[in-house]
């Protein structure tokens, strides 16, 4: 099971964090800081896997963004790399050639996609198509939802 996923920039700015195990706020901050330091210090040609505390860390860099997952002893490192890759593919498809700015300004959307892809630290849906369908449906609902309401509001105002 995945324990957490972090997205951070080359400058050490956290862009996304998702924790699948209950962790105290203070520990989270400490772990994020420590991991960023370790991962950012690694050179490009080095191994993508780390053993850190009692967890295994799998990270991958996409342009200026680092995607970093913590998994358990029995989990498969290589497939975790593919989890990261599929998440990037999903983001790319949703935003249309994604860039760091998309994730910065629409981070809540990135969270929604992640929630549709992973649940409770396990992969929920591996199909690109169906994950995006679920997201789009929710987005659509939101728009339908908004328009009648604004009309009502206008009427109330009028």
């Amino acid at each position, binding site marked *: 099971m995945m324990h957490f996923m972090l997205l951070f920039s080359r400058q050490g700015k956290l862009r996304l964090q998702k924790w699948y195990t209950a962790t105290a706020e203070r520990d989270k901050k400490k772990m994020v800081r420590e991991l960023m330091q370790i991962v950012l210090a690694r050179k490009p040609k080095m191994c993508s*896997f780390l053993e850190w*505390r009692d967890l295994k860390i799998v990270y991958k860099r996409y342009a200026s963004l680092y995607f970093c997952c913590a998994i358990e002893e029995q989990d498969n490192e290589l497939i975790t790399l593919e989890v990261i890759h599929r998440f990037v593919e999903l983001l790319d498809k949703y935003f249309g050639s994604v860039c760091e700015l998309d994730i910065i300004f629409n981070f809540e959307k990135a969270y929604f996609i992640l929630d549709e892809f992973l649940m409770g630290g396990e992969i929920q849906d591996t199909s690109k198509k169906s994950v995006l369908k679920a997201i789009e449906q929710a987005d659509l609902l939101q728009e339908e939802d908004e328009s009648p*309401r604004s009309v009502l509001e206008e009427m109330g105002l009028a």
Partner: protein
Amino acid sequence: MSDVVEKTLTALPSLLSLDSQPGSAKLSSTSKLGNLIRGITELTSKHEEEKLIQQELASIKEQVSSPNTSMRQMKELMVRAIYCEMLGYEASFSYIHAIKLAQQGTALEKRVGYLAVSLFLNESHELLLLLVNTVLKDLQSTNLIEVCMALTVVSQMFPKDMIPAILPLVEEKLNHPKEIIRRKAVLALYKFYLIAPNQVQHIHNKFRKALCDKDPGVMTASLHIYAQMIQEKPEGYKDLAASFVAILKQVVGGKLPMDFNYHSVPAPWLQIQLLRILSLLGKNDQRYTSEIMYEVLDESLRRAEMNHNITYAILYECVKCIYTIHPKSDLLEKAAKCIGNFVLSPKINLKYLGLKALTYVVQQDPKLALQHQMTIIECLDHPDLIIKRETLELLFRITNAQNVTVIVEKMLDFLRISEDDYTTIDLVGKVAELAEKYPSECWFIETMNTVFSVGGDMMQPDIPNSFLKLLSEGFDSVEEDKKLRLFAVDSYVSLLQGEPDKLPQRFLQVISWVLGEYSYLKEELQPAAVLRLLAKLLDTKNTSSETKSWILMAMTKLCDGEAGVSVAQEVSETYSSSLDTVLRQRAHELQYLSQNPELRSKVLPRDAGLEVDSSLSFLDGFVSEALAAGAAPYKPPHQRQEELAQAKALSLEPYGLSLPISMSSCSIADRQSPTLLSISSGLSGDSTDLSLKGGSTTLKLDGVKRVWGKEGYLAQREPLEEAAAQVEVPSPLRSPSQTGEADNSHSQTPIPIPTPEPEQEKQQLASSLFVGLSSHSSVSLMGKSEPTPQRFRRKAKSPSSSLDASERISNSLVSSTSTVDNLLCDNLLDTSELAVPSPSLTSQLSQSLTTANGSFDVQLTESDVKGSSPTLVRDNGVAVPLSGLSHSEITPLCSDQSLDLSVCHVQKEEYLALVSCVCDSAVQELRSLGVAVCQYSLTVKRPSVHVEVVGMVSYQLPVGTHQSVQFSHKLPLTSFIRPLTVSTEEYGKMWLDFTNDTKQNLSLISDGQESLTATLNVLKKKLQLHVVEIIGVEGIVACRLHQDQPCLMHCRVHAGTLAVWLRSPVPDLPDCLIYHCQRALQEH
């Protein structure tokens, strides 16, 4: 695709300052969040950022608490609050509003509300209770998206205690027509299972339903739960192995919809999960479960040939599985080749995993490490520390007496450059373990010195403890011990003369203890000089008070002679007024003892091993008096707690099946006279707790003098095992073969080929690392099983005392036998009068039996001790009352130098009698070999395909050494099956009453006219079934497990196969029986 992403993302830094770029065009550039983000990126210092965020938070706080803020605005505010929290600033004021938003907002706002809640709070946060009602409402919503959101938040975090409130609703969702809802519900249940397994215990059948779901996604989700359950209790799910194999076959064969493909590999996540489950099921397996996996594993290996990460992921999992389950040679070969591909791969990630896999399998297959020795050497110098670290881990597993120095050196090198505390602690522990395993005087001390100084105060506290223990207990030779200690003293004195304030506290403690104990060994060293060194240490300001008390203790041991006393006086004066009470006490002790040499030599005798009576036997008298006076016998804390818990609440959990239901132990002691023969039966063995509980009904303990309550009883086994472990039997095979192997591997390294300098260096390193690792020495490679060729060997700890203990125990055993036991004893005595106990036979022999999966009853009903020649027993096979009944072949179970244990089972009407025969094989020339025959009756409580009986024989040789032999014996269920004679009418009546059934098609053994009769006859012969009647193409058959556990079978020939329908009142019995029918027909 990733290239595109990378290209786009590379252009990012320049984007940040420009608003007109396409990337930011679709961002709500006018939104407040946009402004905030832009504002932050423009700042230059951390301080400015903090100021800006505080302003932002203040404005958010003001707005959220305003009654005029609409939910829509609230949503926007929450997003900003999340952003601030992500930057590391606390926005706890917004938590309650996030919950409110989830509660009151429309679907879209709710979504943000739930997201904020899941990011802000964790499952122990008290505000989460306020969310329960919202979740309840949304779970019942008709809007699918709301249901999805509720399930998502539930699986992210939910208060444990509130699970029962929503559980029925989540369960209901398992029947939802939409697969996305079912899938999320399953994952939510998985989360519940993880955080509160007992809350979902009653819905295990629902999990099974999810496993059988027609949507592969839902099925995949349910595997998470199964993986967890199987990990906890593999034996409970062995029956599912065939189903998992079938699923994997379909997946590998590409039977799933294209949607599940990932880069044209069919459902890799599902494949990996299934492989993991299979390896859990096949772990420590006795072949039967593993056998059904071989084919699909082979296919998986074959199919995964594309050169892509994802296929390597599957291969890696496959290899792990192959090495975990019951081995099959050709699969192992393929897996080894696969590991080779990983190790030799130019891709660093694969190389790393290859090393990991090697580490994992090297114990089973040391040849593999030899094959890749040059790669391993290269990895040892790899610039990436992670690779280096993993290589060391691998080397650690292949350490033997010959390469230990080189490997430890490499590990110490790494330790000196490592900065990670976790790695240091782990590696220091490993170095210490190796050093202790292969100690040789100065190398050992020097290595440990490095361990102590590098490991510092972080290392596990047991490292210094066991080092001191090793030093004080010594090895085989007094001379060597003295040398070792002397060397330690020498090296510590020189360390203290250097810069002792740089040494870690733990090391200083070790140093002061050793100097206190052993500095007298160095005659030219004046105690006063040592005292002065220690006193200097006391004055160093870094020295902790714990270390100071160690130093004072050491000084107390050393204060000899006039000069010494004066130093001691000085020090004790300083510290006798210390604020630390421990230090003060030590100082007073020092003061008093330094003035009173006579008392000191009595309190701290030099060079006298400390005797610790850990059994507290000196309290025996007191305890038995107290017991006689009516005191309650001692219960260990865990038992007290358990009983307390049982008394407090009703246990709602069904009884676990894995309890060792019953065990028996019999002990035959013929040391003094035949009257000492005793059999203690009932519940005993590992869990003496059980024996007490059982004792309330069967054993009468009142008025029986008990020695140290149950502890004494417990100790019966302990000293036996301990002694067996400690006394190393010198193996005559050892030295020649070891050296032979060493030569072998030397000659294996390719020396004659001229190679460039560095290459040669590497090969030299290789030969020193892989020495002793030849292909023949697979067993002797690792750890303790290896006969170590050193002069040092741990001394058996005071053999005399453990002998005493066992003597005492055997006495107490006799006195504590119950009336039931006495009956048995009488029986025994009768027979044993006839017996001629062999003088060489073990003077005490105890045997215990347990069943592995706990579903069986083992009862010791009768016991015989016979003195007869082994041939007689073997020919006779069984004792007189059993002769005439059908019995199995006598199977030898285990043997060692002094005894052979064989077993055979006899099919009695109501139970299976297991006759075990222990005979003394040590002294062949003596004709009157001792033979003990024990008989157990086995009955089945819950059917399973096989039953395994495991046990241990422990015995004592006349010379006083204890030995124990473990054995296990596997019986098929068919041994317990008996024919059931019923008429066709009775059969018809019974058939309708039974509820548990199973159906399956079996193959007929021949195609001819009489195929049904022939097939049934085979079953009748092999499984002891009773054929009730054969009518045309149908046949009815009956059998039973016990008198009251019948199983009926209805067979019909249909389309060339035999359709079998089994019914029984006993759950699982039909399934087990069909398995055996299948096997019987296959074997035919």
